[in-house]
């Protein structure tokens, strides 16, 4: 695998606001330790998620940032602003004192980028900012991360963000699952909770996480009730409903409506380590795309996960083998996470019976196939998670026989990035000459607009050559330089517009845009060399994508 900074000593991992993200970074943390056994890893995390860090293996130090305090101080206005500033200043000093040599920012937020710039850490994966406050993404894998989560490109991506993130930290060796410690005390507590429950059934112990971070990503309680009733009444299952205290209002009515001693709620009764232990004890977890889903995966408990509304299974699906992902098929999904939805029709596409039966089946082993009668692929796609030969997580469709158009794009892009960014040996890899003229033969099969993008890239290369000559030749008038620059600007705009117009090309062109944004320095010749590389990358990737796409049937 191609690596930028393979050696690391003092590592800062910034992962401030999300519990799930913290768990999703565990293969990366483990991988860094596997490849650099003597390194020291510090995690910067939001205070409320500090406790999870203590049960994550390989973390040497946890530093927390209290964003609740910060925001409360800012809301107080006046001197509150100064208090918040003072707090941040102390944090910056504390972090500076650590003298990290490598940092990895999991978050794409502007503030973490600014924070890392203040720390002046020499090497970085992920997002940082430059001295003027602009976003900087040096690692191409990190650019792919930003590209893939862009709403325009999500559907064409099949790389799990855990892997993309791992690669942005140059980590090749890694466990093929998330990691978390299950503490003996917590396990004892979980056992006592289960012992207290007066289950009359003796079948599988199934955990259900009904709450989700957004209402639109939360399956309706009545469907949960129906699903649980099937589990309890038809399959002798014992059901525990998990959740944070704030989810009581969702969970309690479900328990009430189930009217069964085989359904209990542990909402608000568990700390994160205790929840971890409880999920470890469960045989399956039925859930949405939630933090507990990642915890269950980390403890080795398989999940039946529903990716509703804005959630997308390929992106943030369970990172481990043999987990079931249910992705509704709907024109508007996966939708924009920032928009509310008053009519989440995607919820109706998943039948409670299917979920219940998949849960039961999974307690018996890996699910290899799902009958189209049970799960209509026009309504819901059922996937099983697995790892490919390069150690990248993927989803295998269980209720479709043939590859559809999206699958073909996803596969082509998957090969492109593994080959081009990762340097992995990929099946059907083409040999691309820098000055090939074979674009018509390679690209005439199919991805609309790809030839146009390639033309632009090659025009760009020619203009860069003109630019370099003009820079060297002192006789060339300034107007000529301006003309070339204007030509390049027009070309760049055209490339970006082609990406918007032909959505399958969005990821390709977005990577180009990020690369242009991250050109460094102000020396004209140096910039010209960097730009040459950027146009060259685009041209090469166009050709590779065309070849991969054409070889997938």
């Amino acid at each position, binding site marked *: 695998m191609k690596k930028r900074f393979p050696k690391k000593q003092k590592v800062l991992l910034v992962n401030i606001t999300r519990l799930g993200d913290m768990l999703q970074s565990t293969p990366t943390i483990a991988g860094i330790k596997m490849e650099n056994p003597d390194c020291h890893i510090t995690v910067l995390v939001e205070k409320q998620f500090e406790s999870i860090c203590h049960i994550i293996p390989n973390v040497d130090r946890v530093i927390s940032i209290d964003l609740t305090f910060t925001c409360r101080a800012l809301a107080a206005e*006046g001197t509150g602003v100064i208090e918040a*500033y003072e707090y941040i200043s102390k944090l*910056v000093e504390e972090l500076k004192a650590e003298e990290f040599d490598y940092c990895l920012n999991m978050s794409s*937020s502007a*503030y973490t980028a600014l924070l890392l710039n203040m720390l002046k850490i020499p090497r970085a994966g992920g997002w940082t900012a430059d001295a003027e406050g602009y976003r900087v993404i040096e690692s191409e894998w990190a650019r792919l991360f930003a590209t893939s989560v862009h709403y325009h490109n999500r559907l064409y991506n099949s790389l799990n963000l855990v892997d993309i993130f791992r690669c942005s930290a140059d980590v090749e060796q890694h466990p093929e699952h998330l990691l978390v410690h299950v503490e003996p005390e917590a396990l004892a507590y979980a056992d006592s909770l289960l012992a207290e429950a007066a289950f009359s059934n003796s079948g599988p112990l199934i955990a259900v996480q009904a709450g989700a971070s*957004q209402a639109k990503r939360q399956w309706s309680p009545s469907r949960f009730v129906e699903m649980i009733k099937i589990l309890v009444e038809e399959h002798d299952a014992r059901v525990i409903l998990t959740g944070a205290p704030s989810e009581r209002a969702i969970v309690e009515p479900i328990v009430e409506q189930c009217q069964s001693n085989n359904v209990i709620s542990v909402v608000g009764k568990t700390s994160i380590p205790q929840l971890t232990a409880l999920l470890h004890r469960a045989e399956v977890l039925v859930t949405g795309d939630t933090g507990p889903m990642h915890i269950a995966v980390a403890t080795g408990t398989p999940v039946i996960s529903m990716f509703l509304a804005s959630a997308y299974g390929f992106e943030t699906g369970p990172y481990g083998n043999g987990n079931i992902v249910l992705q509704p098929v709907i024109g508007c999904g996966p939708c924009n996470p920032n928009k509310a939805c008053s009519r989440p029709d995607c919820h109706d596409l998943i039948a409670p019976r299917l979920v219940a039966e998949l849960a039961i089946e999974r307690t018996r082993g890996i699910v290899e196939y799902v009958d189209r009668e049970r799960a209509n692929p026009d309504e819901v796609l059922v996937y099983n998670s697995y790892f490919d030969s390069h150690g990248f997580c993927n989803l295998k469709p269980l209720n479709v026989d043939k590859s559809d158009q999206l699958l073909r794009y996803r596969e082509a892009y998957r090969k492109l990035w593994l080959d081009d960014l990762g340097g992995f040996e990929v099946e059907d890899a083409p040999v691309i000459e820098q000055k090939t003229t074979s674009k018509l033969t390679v690209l005439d099969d199919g991805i609309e607009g790809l030839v146009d993008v390639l033309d632009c890239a090659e025009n760009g290369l020619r203009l860069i050559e003109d630019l370099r000559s003009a820079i060297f030749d002192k006789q060339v008038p300034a107007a000529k330089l301006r003309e070339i620059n204007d030509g390049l600007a027009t070309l760049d705009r055209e490339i970006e517009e082609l990406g918007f117009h032909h959505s399958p090309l969005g990821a390709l062109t977005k990577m180009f845009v990020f690369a242009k944004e991250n050109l460094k320095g102000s020396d004209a010749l140096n910039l010209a060399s960097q730009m040459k590389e950027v146009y060259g990358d685009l041209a090469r990737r166009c050709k590779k994508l065309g070849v991969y796409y054409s070889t997938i049937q």
Partner: protein
Amino acid sequence: MSEKDFSLAVFTTLSERMREDWNRRVRYDYRLWVTNTLTKNAELLDEGERDFAVFKNIAQQTKRGVALEVGCGVGRMLPAAKRVFQSVLGVDISEEAIQKARTLLDSASGISVETSSGFTLENVADNSIDYVWSFASMPHMPTRVFASYLSEIQRVVVPEGLVQLQVFLGEQAPPNEFDTLRMRAYTMSALESACALAGLQVEVFEPITMPLSDCLSELGIEPVVMTCRLSESPKGSIEAIAAALLPDTPELYDAMAPCADFEAWLATHYADRLHSDGDFDRARRALEYVIQNCKTTTVDVSDIMQRLEGLSDKRESPVMSTDVFEQNMACLRDVCPAVYSQLVSFRSADSKRAIRISGSEDGPVLWSGKTCLDHPQKPIRAAEAWVKRTYSEEAVQKSSRIIVVGFGAGYHIEALLADSSKRVSCIEPDIEVLYAAFCARDLRTVIPRLESLVLYEEQALELDCNDAQLIVRPQAIIVSAEKAEDIQRHFYATRGTQSLHPRIAVLGPLQGGTLSIGEYTTHALQALGQNVRGIDMSGFNDPYMLVSSLIRDEFKQKAARQMYIETLSTFLLESLTERPIDILICMAQAPISPKVLMEFRKRGVITVLWFVEDYLRFTYWKETAQFFDYVFTIQKGVCIEEIRKAGAGRVHYLPTACNPLVHAPVELTDAEKERWGSPLSFVGAGYYNRQQTFASLSHYPLKIWGTEWPTARPFDKLVQESGRRLKPEEYNKIFNATDVNINLHSSTERDGVDPTGDFVNPRTFELASAGAFQLVDERSLLAECFIPGEEIVTFSSVEDLRQKIEYYRERPSERMAIAEKARTRALRDHTYEKRVEQMLEYIYAGSYKRLQDRQGTNPWSQMIEKASFDPELQRQCERASARGADPVLDGIVSEIVTGHGSLTEAEQKLLFLHHVKKQILRMDKGGAGVKNG
């Protein structure tokens, strides 16, 4: 009184002392303690009326039933109060005073006077008085007695009654309780707390001017009228009220503490005045009084004895020494060449000399008329005592520099320099004083040690106020009152500009010419780096005008418009509550109601009116002046007096001006010249005198621009573009495209040129700034702004105008030369920036302390102080405060922009917080970055 209150014995002791002291004082000479007058009782009552005028708008605020004065003395204010109230009662502890009052007031009906116990209003029924006031009385009362009176006032006043007490604001060491003639000062918060405990709520502290005001400001105390209303039942005992006034209420009697200094000072001062008036016998008696009765004073009694002996004029002849002068000048030449040159010129000028030199025990002293500029006998010892007193002041102790106004013979400067910890500068307002001092004394050890020596002769004075205290010697005030006041104004204005960052709002009118003046004022304040917010109300004008299309009856129209103004005022109040201000500048006709102005003042906001209109034509100031702390007028003399009488705090002359960004020479295209140009133009509304004048000029190639012109002949052809309202940019094109611009000030009653016209209209400055040639009618205040005949050409009549039109039409180069001079002068002296600077100078000079105190409570100040751990953050806060941003994070980061050069660490931290806040807000709304669990 409750059980917790002081014992009756304490009050009895204090009141006996007060009664004894005041009886003695009144017996000796009742005029001495209360008045500037020396003989006439009529003048005494006139002064009473003058002083009663500090209590403003009484009639509007309470029923005009029964009024009570606490500490009425000989009753000099009671007749003035009787003109407002049906009946007036005065109480005083001194039987002598009450007896004298009965004689003075004779049998005036409706006025009664009574003696009181000295700490209660025992003869006044509960809930029976509409109005209680007190002047120059409460500060002299022992703190315990003052506390007792607050409680008593609460008892006697009716629920909707009004209480106005003259008090002093300031911080000082608690004086001896037995000192019954003493200017006690309390802090604003102490007075508010004490009143609250007594069941009174303070509405406002109104600064007032009193005799000896200059000395008071030197002492750091400010005379104010404290206006209170009944709030609820008293919440605290007299003891608690006294403790609120002074946390360490002084011991009842401290034998060591001096307690007759002010009395001694007043008596000796009185003696001086009598002596100056040639009344040697009374002067002697006054000095004898000091010796007999002011035994605990620190005033040097032996000195008084000597003055007694020297009451017959034994002043020595002037002692002038050329040698001494030359030696001093040689020393001065290198140190202070500017003053050196001024003194050289002065010596050679043959002017009348008014300063005399006489001898004293310590050396020569200077005299101006009958005032000795040093101590007449022991100038060295007096100077040392003065320095000791000066250095005991906290403000002086905290400063590293002292600026003294008044050089005298230099003894006190010498004494100040003896303490090397402070740098000393001196400003002498009168060159002759310095000249005489240089002739009289060898000052070679003094001159080089001064940080600076300045002769103040003109308006321009550059003061370095940084870490300095200004001390104005009383002698300087006596000899050069105006200049000393100017220096004080400059000092506090400069210091204010450097250290105060008030939040200012400029409130424009709904419509009319003042609209643009409001905008220019806002821009000028911005250009001066002030924290200003312009409030444009012109968008509310259409509904205001629509009233007449809905309602026919004019009276009802007026009422409806008044209601509309009330509504707008409420909007304004809400707006300025959201973003508080310290100074509200209202332009003439700004839509704001008295109620809201009162509310702003109650909140401590300084209210300012720039009345850029003819006070005789627009008389609404009569009702509104009282609600403004400062009124600036475009007229002088009677105008200022009248507006002052109408209750305005301070009134100053401040003419309008030009905005060089708008009123400037412009290049015009041929088409523009065709449209806007003419050999003769006039821009303005069609007032009576203008119609009458321009009708007679209709045979000239004249273009008239503006509204309200008749459509009949000859105006049908003269008035351009249907008499529409023009924009300032359009005026400016007309000015530039016209050979001769006529500027005739409006009059609704006179024909042609108003012979009594005084103020200068904005057009005069605008034309000058545009570099346009104008013929302007004569105005009495014009010559102060432009030199007639040189910088501007005036006409005195229509005939004169005609002749000058004929003359100047033919002489373009003369026109151009004059216009150029006018432009130079306008840009130098008459821009809105200059005017606003002057306006702020007056406000800072008059309200420095108030603004400084407010600044302490301003959120920006608190933020700036709290940010002291990070100088860069502090600078960011200061900048945000100066540009008028809200005291929140967004206010600080609003000008931090990415991509404009490297961000500093402080900028990055602030942006960090900004993005955190944004993201968390998004998360709270269930938006992006949603938590996964």
